[in-house]
């Protein structure tokens, strides 16, 4: 099957229609990159298991239709925003349908916010999807956290499409000052019955000896397409503690790139993905250990039920000279349906010798004896399955590093699991 190509001509027109501001030079450069390389296909090793076809199809339809950005005055959207802001007590920066909205942001918090359009500094643009993001970006946010704040910083990327196809871009650069202790919540959500493709790029620069706690919640409408890239660069002796939760979405592709260029960094990141009918959730992680000593540890867990497919590809690269590296990868999957598929690929590339690296991957089912035990205690099969899958997921829910988000994550995971296990027990 040949993948449809992104229609570059329509894209060019869309870019030319955008306001002639400080971002224009970057947009044009990104467009030229896309024109030359296009978007990746399943023939590319990094995209072997994920076909961007639906994302390209939505983009082409949206571009052919004039590529208009909806305004944020929609009631449905306002309700959705209010619900999320009500559930998690954070200082929210909102990007709704690609448009920045700072109405729920408290400027007195000490967090400094600037728009990309206010300065000519270029932003990330190194991979095809980041190029697409740069080419179509309405505006981006540059956030500086100088000191610990009372409430965590919330980045809400929310989209609403009720007819046809729509595409939106979000781009946020977060800089955490040296020695600062910062909490960030990234929340991706979408509603509406139309087709939607959301594409985000977030960069996280962590200053020397700073501590970043980062939670990512993805709860898009089942069927909506999302690709998200997170690039983190921890400084000397910095710590990053991250957890991500993928609950919704149709085709979802997350790329986490962590670049350890300074010694002493310690990175822990975990992920949970719950997939049911019609979902395809792909998590690609890459950690570059350029110097040592530094440690990175990741654990991703997945529960798959119904007709779905999940991909986990963890890559740790220990560059020459990065002695004292400690890198661990773990991926565990529960396959509960005949039609679910998991493709796992834990990769290690090691060019230094004083290292400790390991990875472990398992694919399995619920323990028959545990299920039987619960059945003998009077639980029906569905309840027993729910209880056990819940236990499998709960461990990762408990590791969410931002306290303000834990209640919301718990309730989202619980309700998603209840839905999933109903589908087939």
């Amino acid at each position, binding site marked *: 099957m040949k993948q449809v190509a992104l229609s570059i001509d329509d894209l060019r027109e869309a870019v030319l229609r955008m306001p002639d501001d400080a971002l224009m030079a970057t947009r044009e450069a990104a467009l030229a990159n896309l024109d030359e390389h296009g978007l990746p296909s399943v023939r590319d*090793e990094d995209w072997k298991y994920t076909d961007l076809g639906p994302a390209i199809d939505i983009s082409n339809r949206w571009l052919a239709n004039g590529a208009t950005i909806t305004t944020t005055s929609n009631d449905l959207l306002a309700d959705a925003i209010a619900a999320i802001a009500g559930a998690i007590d954070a200082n929210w920066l909102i990007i709704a349908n690609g448009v920045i909205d700072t109405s729920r942001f408290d400027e007195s918090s000490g967090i400094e916010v600037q728009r990309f359009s206010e300065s000519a500094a270029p932003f990330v643009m190194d991979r095809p999807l980041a190029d697409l993001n740069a080419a179509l970006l309405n505006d981006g946010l540059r956030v500086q956290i100088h000191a610990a704040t009372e409430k965590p910083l919330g980045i809400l990327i929310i989209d609403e499409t009720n007819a046809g196809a729509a595409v939106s871009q979000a781009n946020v650069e977060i800089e955490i000052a040296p020695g600062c202790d910062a909490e960030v919540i990234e929340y991706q959500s979408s509603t509406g019955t139309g087709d939607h493709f959301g594409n985000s790029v977030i960069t996280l620069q962590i200053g020397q000896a700073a501590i970043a706690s980062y939670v990512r919640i993805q709860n898009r409408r089942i069927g909506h397409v999302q690709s998200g890239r997170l690039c983190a660069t921890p400084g000397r002796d910095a710590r990053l503690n991250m957890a991500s939760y993928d609950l919704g979405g149709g085709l979802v592709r997350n790329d986490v790139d962590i670049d350890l260029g300074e010694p002493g960094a310690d990175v822990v990141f975990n992920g949970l993905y719950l997939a049911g009918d019609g979902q395809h959730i792909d998590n690609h992680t890459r950690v570059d250990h350029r110097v040592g000593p530094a440690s990175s540890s990741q654990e991703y867990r997945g529960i798959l039920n119904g007709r779905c497919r999940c991909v986990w590809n963890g890559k740790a690269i220990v560059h*020459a000279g990065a*002695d004292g590296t400690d890198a661990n990868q773990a991926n565990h*999957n529960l*396959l*509960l*349906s*005949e039609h*679910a*598929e*998991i*493709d*796992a*690929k*834990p*990769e*290690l*590339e*090691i*060019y*230094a*010798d*004083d*290292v*400790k*690296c*390991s*990875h*472990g*991957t*398992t*694919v*399995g*089912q619920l323990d028959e004896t545990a299920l039987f035990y619960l059945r003998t205690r009077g639980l029906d099969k569905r309840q027993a399955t729910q209880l056990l899958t819940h236990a499998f997921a709960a461990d990762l829910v408990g590791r969410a590093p931002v306290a303000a988000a834990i209640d919301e994550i718990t309730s989202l995971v619980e309700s998603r699991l209840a839905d999933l296990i109903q589908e087939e027990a």
Partner: protein
Amino acid sequence: MTSENIESIVNRRYEHGFVTDIETESLPPGLDEGVVRAISARKNEPEFMLEWRLQAYRQWLEMAEPEWAHLHYPPVKFNEISYYAAPKSDADRPKSLDEVDPKLLETYDKLGIPLHERARLAGVAVDAVFDSVSVATTFKDKLSEAGVIFCSFSEAVREHPELVKKYLGSVVPRRDNFYAALNSAVFSDGSFVYIPKGVRCPMELSTYFRINAANTGQFERTLIIADEGSHVSYLEGCTAPMRDENQLHAAVVELVALEGAEIKYSTVQNWYPGDENGVGGIYNFVTKRGDCRGANSKISWTQVETGSAITWKYPSCLLRGENSVGEFYSVAVANNMQQADTGTKMIHIGANTSSTIVSKGISAGKAQNAYRGLVKVMPQAHGARNHTQCDSLLIGKECGAHTFPYMEIKNPSARIEHEATTSKISADQLFYCRQRGISEEDAVNMIVNGFCKEVFKELPMEFAVEAQALLNVSLEGAVG
């Protein structure tokens, strides 16, 4: 270890590197349909074989050289290779070892393979492949008593065309990959084994491959068929003389295990790895695949890879029969400038199939060693079970160890486990041995052998001893 000591060991020459001066009858370098026809004609092959080769050649022309492996080497110039070389004495083949060219026997002596002695003492039948044509086959009588067919591939094409026709290319199709297609077009010779129903092969079968003539790619083709309820253990070992130019080696090995049959295939590969700067050395692009076609069949691959400048090799198992079992045990050592990209594929197709993968990679010097494996469970493969363990040991600051395991699971009853570790020899382990009066080199050998023990214990006895010695030799000079 003192630096002079390291120096002296590093500077040791490849022990098996020498050239036997025998006239060979070669085709001029280059490849076209004429060459394919000439190879086929020289071997007096029947029409079907020529046609098969020609189709493979045409398919090869349309294929591209694979580039996905974690390997870096200058492009192979396929037109500068001579595709056929046979020892001069091809016309009147020796009937027994006494008739074999003494120089050839001397070569084997230098390699420490006293052919007849070894054969008699160890009860091993040896089908020695010198360059491309089998020159000596022993213990044929004893085997034929059991009904076992063990002969060169050319002989099989002439004497057992029905078996060749039925099974050739049935596991590794002609256009399976670039090198398999090339091999299918120009394969020179190799071994053919057929074990009849219910027969347990009375001895371990063994072939020693050698590459001798300069610039001659060697393209063996091995086909082993184990009929229902039979059992065979096959040993493949190789050494090659020292060369300055890269030699291409693109073999294809096909194994077919029918219901209840078991094939154990063991390899010790010690092709010339090139000198310390990576000059010379064999390019080893091998396609090995076993097909567990029948229920309750089993195919086990064991390999000890210490040689070759470039290794590209993934012995695989297609687990089609119910309850069939696939195993892969591997030790891959890369020293100096060697590069290896090796691993396995376990494709679970039948119900209740199980596979085990144990891979031990050792990198030293400036070598790059990659494990690349695939475990695939098809939707109908209920109750599939896999356990994979792949460990890497790093010796030295400039080497690399990489793992690229793929797991594609499409059945919920599958139980798949994969674990991998990478580490160096710990200072504590070394210190412990040293304070017990063991020299650093012996200590490293001991630790490395312990690291590889799980794989060595799968090798047949005589091979295990050789492998252990080979490992020590391969790593000498790497430790400091």
